[in-house]
Structure formats: structure tokens, C-alpha cells
């Protein structure tokens, strides 16, 4: 017996289909997130579940009971909805609004009992609005008002809580505060929530339902649903999907693609490490350059960036020096490159070979790139690198600072060549 089960429902507004053949269920006590692009039908799906919107066909079952067989009050005792910030036209107090959650329990000829007051107090306590009880809903902030609506929903003592982007209008600290409250409630209550923010959804939800063009595109654990391929297919956008460094949940970041420009048909090789090259790998890739990089250790942040961008990279296993095979790979990259870029990174015995190889390419333009004035090439080789640097600069290697200057330099090289 599932707390809520949606079986093959269609919904349309007039002639316009909004949802088609939607089937899913929520397990008891879980947080189920509904995600998808604007217009994919997320909110409508939630409205069908609260019976505000009629469906064309299909079935919705609550604890194995047909949704349509429930009276209005019975439904409100089982399912509570936290809407997106609603405007409250009249000047009610916070307690008035929370007490409205008891409406489905109070008969027409009765008034609220001590128990109703107790439940209200408890709900306000859980939603952290007890201190606002006597204030007008017009005097409190948007985040507080949203918590008041949560308290009102809790006063309904529901089995199922539906949230319609309940935190979308709030700043991030209030979003997290409210979602933490919701997560503490899950377990006793089954939560189904529409999310706009994929990262919040990935962190707070046990399972996700991804909608695309009126239909369910994917469903399952956040890690299964929020894959790079699914996001590309549904949102039409390249996203990096990484585990969040602290929570291990999937974390998505947009790959901000530039229009291919200066870099068309140009090849660059980037010698980098320790995260000093990630910004320009992305920038150059986005600008249309054919980018290679290495030699890098596979634990290096720059290696991860290269893999996310799909760039060819010469790599070594963890805690390993540079092997002759890797050096051969590096030479192959350098042979094809129009320009070689060296980022400002610490140089030690482990990566000195990357630079020594450059001495064998006296005719290739070499650019030393520093992200900003704080970036330095610390020498941990006891002076060996310093001599090498002087040598390269004597042959015409340049220093540039900042990505803009680098791009300007590269386009100048390009026109020199043409």
C-alpha cells in the first residue's frame, strides 16, 4: 500500500495537453522531488495530486483509496499543500493563518478546542514561527511567511505534504532553513515537492522524478536521474555532474559555453596542475580551440576538468613520476600545438620534466599564464627551474596575466601566422 500512487494520468487545459501517461508512486516517509524544465508540467502534476486540477483519465490512489472518493474535508486531513508565496489580502495574524489548517477538523457548528490550539502551537514550534504568533502576516518577511504556510500545512496533520516550489522565491539561507525543516518531518510524513533548483533536489530528495515534455523522462535515486546525458536531453544544456565534496550527493554546474570564436582550427597545449589550468581549459575549449593538456596526475583537479570537458590529456596514475611513455605522449601533443601555455603552478621534481621538454621546441610560441598577480611559479627544485625559465624567456616566451590578455595574445599569434 503506497501513500500516494499515480496511475497513467493525463491532464489537459482545454485542448492543450499538459501531462501524458504519468505513472509513479511515493514510498511512505520519503521525499520525492519533481524536477524538469519550465512548462514540463511539474506544478500541474502537483495540482492533480491535490485535486485542484481535474485529470482526463487515469487514477490517483491515496493509501489504496481512490482520490475522487474522498470528500473535501477528508482530503484536506490527508494531503496538505504548501504553495509558492501567496499574497494574503486581509490582515490576519500568524496564529489565524495556522489555525486555518485545523478547518477540516472543526465542524460547522463547532469552534476550535484546546486540542486544536495545542496542535497549532506544536506546528508553529516545528516550523519555527512560534515567536511570530501574534504578528500580522503583513509584518513578517517572505521566508517567515513561507514557514507560516508550512506550519499551517502541519496543523492539518497530513499524511502527505505537497510543496510547489515552496522555497523558490527565497534566498539560499532561507531555502536551506525551510528544507531542513521539511527533511526533519519526512519519515512521519511523505513529501512530494516540485523543485526548481536541481542541487537542492539532489541533496534533499530520496528519489527524483524528471519530467520532459509532459511525460516522465526518468525516475529513481538522484544519482541515477541527474546524469549528464539526462540533463542534456531534458534541459538542452551541458552540465557538469560531480559528487558534492561534502555530501557526496550529485551536484550539477552549468558548463557556460561561449560561441566558438578566436580559436577555430587552432591547437593549444596547456601544461598545468593543481587547479591552476581549470579556468583556461574551460575558456579555451569554449572559445573553440582544440585543447590538449598534460602531463597530469589523475588526482589533479585540472585532470578532472579536462575529463569533464572531454579534452585529451596525458596522465599518470596517482603518486607517480613522469614516465618515458607519458613524455612521448606529451611530445606528440606539443608537435601538433600552435601555442604552448604554461600556467603558474608550483614546480618540483615531479613535474619539472613537463618543462624540460619545452626546451626541445625552440620555435613554438610559449606563454606563461598567471590567473592574477598572486599566482606565482614557486620553485621547489633548488634553482634548476629558475635557470630553465630564464632560458625559455630568452627565446621569446611571454608572461601574460589574466584570461583576457591570454585570449588577446593567442588571437595575435593567430593573425601573425596567417
Amino acid at each position, binding site marked *: 500500500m503506497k501513500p500516494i500512487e499515480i496511475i497513467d494520468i493525463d491532464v489537459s487545459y482545454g485542448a492543450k495537453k499538459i501531462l501524458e501517461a504519468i505513472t509513479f508512486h511515493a514510498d511512505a516517509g520519503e521525499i520525492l522531488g519533481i524536477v524538469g524544465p519550465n512548462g514540463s508540467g511539474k506544478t500541474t502534476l502537483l495540482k492533480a495530486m*491535490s485535486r485542484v486540477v481535474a485529470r482526463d483519465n487515469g487514477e490517483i490512489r491515496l493509501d489504496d483509496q481512490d482520490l475522487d472518493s474522498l470528500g473535501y474535508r477528508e482530503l484536506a486531513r490527508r494531503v496538505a499543500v504548501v504553495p509558492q508565496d501567496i499574497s494574503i489580502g486581509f490582515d490576519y495574524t500568524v496564529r489565524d493563518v495556522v489555525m486555518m489548517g485545523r478547518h477540516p477538523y472543526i465542524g460547522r457548528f463547532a469552534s476550535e478546542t484546546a486540542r486544536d490550539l495545542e496542535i497549532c502551537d506544536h506546528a508553529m514550534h516545528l516550523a519555527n514561527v512560534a515567536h511570530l504568533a501574534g504578528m500580522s502576516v503583513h509584518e513578517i518577511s517572505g521566508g517567515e511567511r513561507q514557514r507560516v504556510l508550512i506550519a499551517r500545512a502541519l496543523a492539518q496533520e497530513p499524511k502527505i505534504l505537497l510543496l510547489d516550489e515552496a522555497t523558490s522565491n527565497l534566498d539560499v539561507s532561507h531555502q536551506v532553513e525551510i528544507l531542513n525543516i521539511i527533511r526533519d518531518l519526512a519519515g512521519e510524513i511523505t513529501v512530494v515537492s516540485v523543485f526548481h533548483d536541481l542541487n537542492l533536489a539532489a541533496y534533499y530528495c530520496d528519489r527524483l522524478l524528471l519530467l520532459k515534455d509532459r511525460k516522465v523522462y526518468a525516475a529513481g535515486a538522484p544519482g541515477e536521474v541527474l546524469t549528464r546525458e539526462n540533463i542534456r536531453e531534458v534541459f538542452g544544456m551541458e552540465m557538469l555532474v560531480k559528487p558534492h565534496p561534502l555530501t557526496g550527493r550529485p551536484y550539477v554546474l552549468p558548463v557556460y559555453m561561449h560561441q566558438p570564436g578566436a580559436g577555430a582550427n587552432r591547437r593549444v597545449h596547456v601544461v598545468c596542475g593543481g587547479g591552476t589550468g581549470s579556468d583556461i581549459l574551460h575558456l579555451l575549449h569554449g572559445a573553440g580551440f582544440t585543447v590538449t593538456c598534460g602531463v597530469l596526475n589523475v588526482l589533479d583537479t585540472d585532470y578532472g576538468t579536462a575529463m569533464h570537458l572531454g579534452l585529451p590529456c596525458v596522465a599518470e596514475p596517482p603518486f607517480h613520476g613522469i614516465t618515458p611513455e607519458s613524455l612521448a605522449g606529451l611530445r606528440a601533443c606539443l608537435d601538433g600545438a600552435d601555442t604552448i601555455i604554461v600556467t603558474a603552478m608550483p614546480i618540483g621534481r615531479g613535474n619539472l620534466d613537463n618543462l624540460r621538454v619545452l626546451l626541445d621546441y625552440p620555435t613554438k610560441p610559449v606563454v606563461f599564464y598567471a590567473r592574477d598577480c598572486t599566482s606565482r611559479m614557486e620553485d621547489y627544485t633548488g634553482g634548476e627551474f629558475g635557470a630553465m625559465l630564464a632560458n625559455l624567456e630568452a627565446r621569446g616566451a611571454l608572461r601574460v596575466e589574466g584570461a583576457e590578455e591570454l585570449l588577446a595574445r593567442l588571437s595575435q599569434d593567430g593573425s601573425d601566422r596567417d
Partner: protein
Amino acid sequence: MRRTAPIIILTLICALLISMALAVALGPSGISFGSLFTSDNAWMILWEIRVPRVIAAALVGCGLAVAGTAMQALFRNPMADPYIIGTSSGGALGATLAIVFFAGTGRTVLAFAGAMIATFTVYFIARRGGKIPVETLLLSGVALATLLSALLSFLMYTAGRSLHQIMFWLMGGFWNIAWNDVVVAIPILIGGAGIYLFARDLNILALNEEDATHLGVNVERTKQILLALSAFVTGIAVAVAGSIGFIGLITPHVMRLIVGPDHRFLFPAAALAGAILLVWADALTRTFTSDMPVGILTACFGAPFFIYLLRSRMKA
């Protein structure tokens, strides 16, 4: 709930009783307390004319205020009242038909029927897929009121001898009230009590209809019942006293500022204030003018208030 609300309601009850007593004592033919025991005529004026008149004014004021309060919450619009959605135009047309064709008999029944028919015509015109959007409801109300007033004008144009009677009645007043009119007006209290049972639903409906559904309110049925009850109360008020405007608009608005938006307190407060207002309006017009229709006075004070309300809302 504001803690002061019950005190304010108690105060209003006292004020109403005092107002009614004073209104009975006031009048163009000065009656001294002593003359009641010596003059049958004085007693007759008091008991047969002033007492029923004051009671009817209180009942009509109460009814208009309650119907106005219900409609403002129902449409989430503090500008709404029974006149705006065509209820009283329907009542006025019904009563005029009675005057023109039946020399005034059945005026009450026809006014009541007219109010109901007008309200539900507007309701069905405004209905879209089982729902009644507020915008279409208000616009259909305005459109129907225009049509009804054209029909009313036509009736007046063809009325001949009864034109004066129609005119006077339309302006609204209590000059002809007898005890049987009070009996007709009593059901206003029943309708008002019925509306009061929905006070909590209206508190919730005042938020937002979708939200009200989430809280277990059967929105469409509640709207139908409240529209019917409001039409019932308004129809009776119009039948008894003609068209008296703005009581239904102003009273709920002022009382909301004083007792707050909780309808469990707002309804009694508005009902009492509406009654007090109309008792005094009637007492003043009959004492200081030669029984000018009281509707002229309420409109004179009500319309500027309406404009003020409109302006302050436009600024907000």
C-alpha cells in the same frame, strides 16, 4: 483574533439599543414622555409608526451590511457589494413590476425573486468550466445591472400615474413602514445567521480559492450557497426599503479596520454597525427634512467614501 473584538461587539450592541430608543423618541411631531400616558394619538404615532420604522431600518441596515461583508470576502474585493453584482437591480426591477402591474401587491415576493434571478443569471453567465472567476463575475454583474436598469427605465417611461411612486420607492426609504413590513424583514436575521455559519470558510476563501480547496473548503458549493443567501437577504431589504446604497460597502470596510478580518467577529460587528448607521440616517432625514428618501443621504456620504477607497487602493 483581536482580543478587543468581543468588547467592541458588546459596545455596538449597547449603541444599537440606545440608537433605536433615541430614534423612536425623535420625529417631526414632538412627543413628550408624559404625553404617551395622556394622548392616544401620541401612543399611536409611537407604536404604529416610529417603532416598526426603526426596527425595519435596523433590520435592513443589518442585512445589507452582512450581504456586503459576505460578497467582499467571496470576491476578495473590498469594492464588492450586492449592488455591484446586480442583486439589488434585480430586486428593484421585481418591485417595480409589482407597482406597475399589480398596484404594489406582491412587491416583496417579486423583489426577492428578482434579486435571486439576477444573482444566478450573473452566476451562470460568469461560469466557466464549473468555476466562477471573480473578474467575469463582476463584469457580468455590471453588464446585467445595465440591462436591468434599461428595463426599469422602460417600465417607468410607460408607468404613467405610478411613476412618482416608483421614483420615490427607488430612492429608498422607510416612510411607509408598518408592522407587517417588519414581519417581512425578520427573515433577514435567518439569512444572516445562515451566512454566519460560513464565517470560517470565508476567512479561508479570502486568501485564495485554490488554497481554500487545500484546506478542505468546497469552494464552488460555498460560493453558490453564500450567493443565494446574500441574494435572499438583499432581496428582502430591497423589497422593504427600496434601493439604499453604500451601507453594504462602507460598513464592512470600516468594521474590518476596527475588529480585524476574522469573519466570526466581522459579521456581528458589521451587522450591528449597519443597523446603527441606517437607524440614524433614517432618524435624521425624517426629523430634519420632510421625509427625504434615506437613500439620497447614504449615497451622498457613501459615494465620496467609495472614491476615497478607490484612490487609496490605487496608491497602494
